[in-house]
C-alpha cells in the first residue's frame, strides 16, 4: 500500500476561495477610497457589529496566512526583524508589523481604527499596541475573560463583554461621526448565524466514510466566516458548498479513493506547506476534524444580537476551560471515527501549543488514540525542517497501519 499515490480531491467551492479573497481585499480598498473607515481586527472581533457601523474589517492574521501561502511573506518578516522584533515572536505579527512599517501599499489598506478582543492570546494586545505605536491609529482593546464554566456565558462575565461592545459602539460613533444601526446588526447577526449553520452542517458530514471534505478544504473554506460574517456572499458561498458536499456523500465520493486512516489535526495550518496535507492523503490518511475549522462557526440569536455576539467572542475555542476543550476532543473522536491525532506544535502560537502535550497525553490514554506531535511555524517558512517532519509522519502512519492489521 505504501508508495502508491492515489488522486486526492479538493472541493469546487475551495477552488473559488482565492478569488473571493481578492474580491474582499479589493472591496476594502474601494471602501477606503470612498473615505470610509477600515478596521484592522484580530479575528473573533465581532464583525457583525462592524457591519452595523459601516466599518470595513480586514484581518492582518489572515493577511499573514495569505502572504505565507503565496510566498511573499519574507520581505515583511525581514522588515519587522530589522526594526528589532525577535524571530521568536508570532510570525503573523511580524508580517503585519513589517507591512505596517513598509508603507502598506499592498492588498490591505491602512487602518483607521485598530480593534482587538483578547480571547486567543495576549499577543493580540501586544501586536495591536505596537501597531498603534508605529501608526498612531486609535486603538480599542477589549477583554473576553477566560470562560471557566458554562455559567460565564450568562453572568457578569458576559455582561462585561456586552458593556465593552457598547463602549466600542460609542467610540466608533464619536470618532467617525457614524450612527449605529440596530437593524443592520440584527440583519448581520441573522446572516452570520445562517452561514455558521450551513458550515456546521457541512462539517458534520465529514463523519461519513469516505470523508467528503478534507484538510485543504477546511483550511481554505473558513475564510468567509473569519471576516465576511454578516454578508449575503458568505451565506451564498456556504449554501453552494453544502450542496456540493451533500452530493459527494450521496455518491460516496471522498477526498481520497482508498481512505485508510481518519485523522484529527490540532492547530493552525502550515500555510506555506499545503503539500504536507497532500503527503498524508497520498498515504491514505485524511483529516476529518480540526478544532480550527469549527472555531468561527457559532449559532447566534437575532433576538438578542449584542448578547449573542458577546457570547461568540467569549466562547472561542482557546478561550474556554481546558476540560471543556478536552470534552470536545473526545466527542469528536467518537463522532468522526478518528484513528489518530496530529498535533502541530506551532512556534508562533504559544497560547495554543503550551498545553498541547498535556492534552495529547489525555486523549491518547483515555481513548487509546495514537498521536504525533511535530514542531514548526505556521507562516515563517524558515522554521520548517521538511525532511525531519516527513520522517516522523512516515513512522506515525506505520503505527496506524500496525494497529489496523492487528
Amino acid at each position, binding site marked *: 500500500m505504501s508508495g502508491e499515490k492515489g488522486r486526492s480531491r479538493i472541493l469546487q467551492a475551495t477552488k473559488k476561495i482565492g478569488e473571493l479573497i481578492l474580491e474582499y481585499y479589493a472591496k476594502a480598498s474601494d471602501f477606503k477610497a470612498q473615505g470610509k473607515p477600515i478596521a484592522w481586527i484580530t479575528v473573533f472581533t465581532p464583525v457583525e457589529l462592524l457591519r452595523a457601523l459601516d466599518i470595513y474589517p480586514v484581518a492582518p492574521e489572515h493577511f499573514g496566512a495569505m502572504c505565507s501561502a503565496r510566498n511573499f511573506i519574507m520581505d515583511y518578516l525581514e522588515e519587522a526583524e*530589522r526594526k528589532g522584533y525577535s524571530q521568536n515572536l508570532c510570525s503573523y505579527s511580524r508580517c503585519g508589523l513589517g507591512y505596517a512599517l513598509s508603507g502598506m501599499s499592498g492588498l490591505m489598506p491602512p487602518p483607521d481604527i485598530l480593534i482587538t478582543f483578547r480571547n486567543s492570546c495576549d499577543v493580540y494586545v501586544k501586536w495591536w499596541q505596537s501597531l498603534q505605536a508605529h501608526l498612531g491609529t486609535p486603538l480599542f482593546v477589549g477583554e473576553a475573560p477566560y470562560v471557566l464554566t458554562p455559567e460565564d456565558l450568562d453572568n457578569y462575565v458576559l455582561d462585561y463583554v456586552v458593556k465593552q461592545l457598547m463602549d466600542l459602539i460609542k467610540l466608533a460613533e464619536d470618532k467617525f461621526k457614524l450612527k449605529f444601526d440596530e437593524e443592520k446588526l440584527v440583519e448581520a447577526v441573522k446572516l452570520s448565524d445562517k452561514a455558521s449553520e450551513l458550515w456546521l452542517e457541512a462539517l458534520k458530514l465529514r463523519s461519513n466514510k469516505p470523508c467528503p471534505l478534507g484538510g485543504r478544504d477546511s483550511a481554505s473554506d473558513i475564510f468567509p466566516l473569519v471576516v465576511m460574517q454578516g454578508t449575503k456572499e458568505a451565506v451564498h458561498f456556504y449554501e453552494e458548498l453544502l450542496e456540493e458536499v451533500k452530493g459527494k456523500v450521496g455518491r460516496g465520493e471522498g477526498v481520497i479513493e482508498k481512505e485508510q486512516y481518519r485523522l484529527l489535526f490540532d492547530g493552525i495550518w502550515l500555510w506555506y506547506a499545503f503539500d504536507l496535507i497532500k503527503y498524508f492523503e497520498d498515504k491514505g490518511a485524511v483529516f476529518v476534524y480540526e478544532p480550527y475549522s469549527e472555531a468561527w462557526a457559532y449559532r447566534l440569536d437575532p433576538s438578542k444580537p449584542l448578547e449573542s455576539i458577546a457570547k461568540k467572542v467569549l466562547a472561542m475555542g482557546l478561550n474556554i476551560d481546558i476540560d471543556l476543550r478536552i470534552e470536545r476532543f473526545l466527542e469528536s473522536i467518537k463522532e468522526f471515527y478518528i484513528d489518530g491525532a496530529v498535533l502541530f506544535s506551532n512556534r508562533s502560537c504559544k497560547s495554543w501549543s503550551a498545553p498541547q502535550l498535556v492534552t495529547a497525553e489525555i486523549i491518547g490514554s483515555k481513548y487509546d488514540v495514537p498521536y504525533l506531535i511535530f514542531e514548526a511555524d505556521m507562516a515563517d517558512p524558515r522554521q520548517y*525542517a521538511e525532511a*525531519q517532519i516527513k520522517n516522523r509522519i512516515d513512522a506515525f502512519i506505520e503505527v496506524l497501519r500496525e494497529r489496523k492489521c492487528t
Partner: protein
Amino acid sequence: MYVGVDAGASATKVVIIDEKENIISHAIVPSGINFKASFEEALKKALERLGLSRKDILYIVSTGYGRELVEASTMFSEITCISRGVHKLFPSVRTIIDVGGQDSKAIRINENGRVLDFVMNDKCAAGTGRFLEVMATILGKPIEELGALHFKSLNPVKISSTCTVFAESEVISYISKGCKIEDVIAGLHSAIAERISSMSSRIGFEREVAFTGGVAKNPGFVEALSKRIGFNPILPKEPQIICAFGAALLAKKQFMKKV
C-alpha cells in the same frame, strides 16, 4: 611595548604594539581547551619574533571569550577592543561587522571610535565560522579553499534552513542530487551572509562599513556579504587580529592613565 590578547573560542590572538601604536608583532594559536596555555604559547611566539622578553611588557589587556582565564592587567569586552582597533586604522568607519569562529557581531561607532550600539549572535552556530567549518567537513574541502571555489559558481543553490543541523541535511541532499560543489558553497556563503546581514540591519549600516574577524579572510563570504548589504566594505589586511590590536591600544591607554 603593550600587549593585547583576544582569547577567542576558536583561536587565541596576541598583538604587540610599540609606543607609537604600530603593530610590531603578532601570533595566532588555536585555543583548544586551555586558554592560559594558548595565551602563553601565542605570547612566546610573538615575543620571539622581536627577540624580546616579558620584562619589556608594560601592560596587558585581555578580551574575548576566555579573557578571565589569561593573566592580564585588565579586561575589556571584544566590542570595545574591535572598535578601537578599527577606528585607529580606518577613522572613517562607522559600522563594523565581525564574524568569528563562534560568534558574530555588528557594532556602530561614532567619529571618535566610541561604541553607540551593538548586536551579537553567540548562541547559534549558523552565522558564524562554525557553520562554514561544519559544511566544509561535509563537502570534504579545507576551509581555506572555500573562497576560491565560490567564484567558480554559476548557479548557487538556495539553503533555506536557519539551523546548522538542518542545513547539513540540505547540503547532503543537493550533493546527492548531483549539484556542483561550488554552487553549494556559494549557496552556503549566501545563507550565512543573509543571517549576518539580517542581524546587523537591526542597528543599521552607516558607512563606511568594515568587516573583521577570521571569516573575513574568506573572499567568497566577503563577496556574498557585500552583495547583501549593497556596497563594498573596508577590509583590513589582517582581519583576524583587529580585536587583539584594539586590546593592545587600550593597554597603552590604561598604562598612561596610571602614570
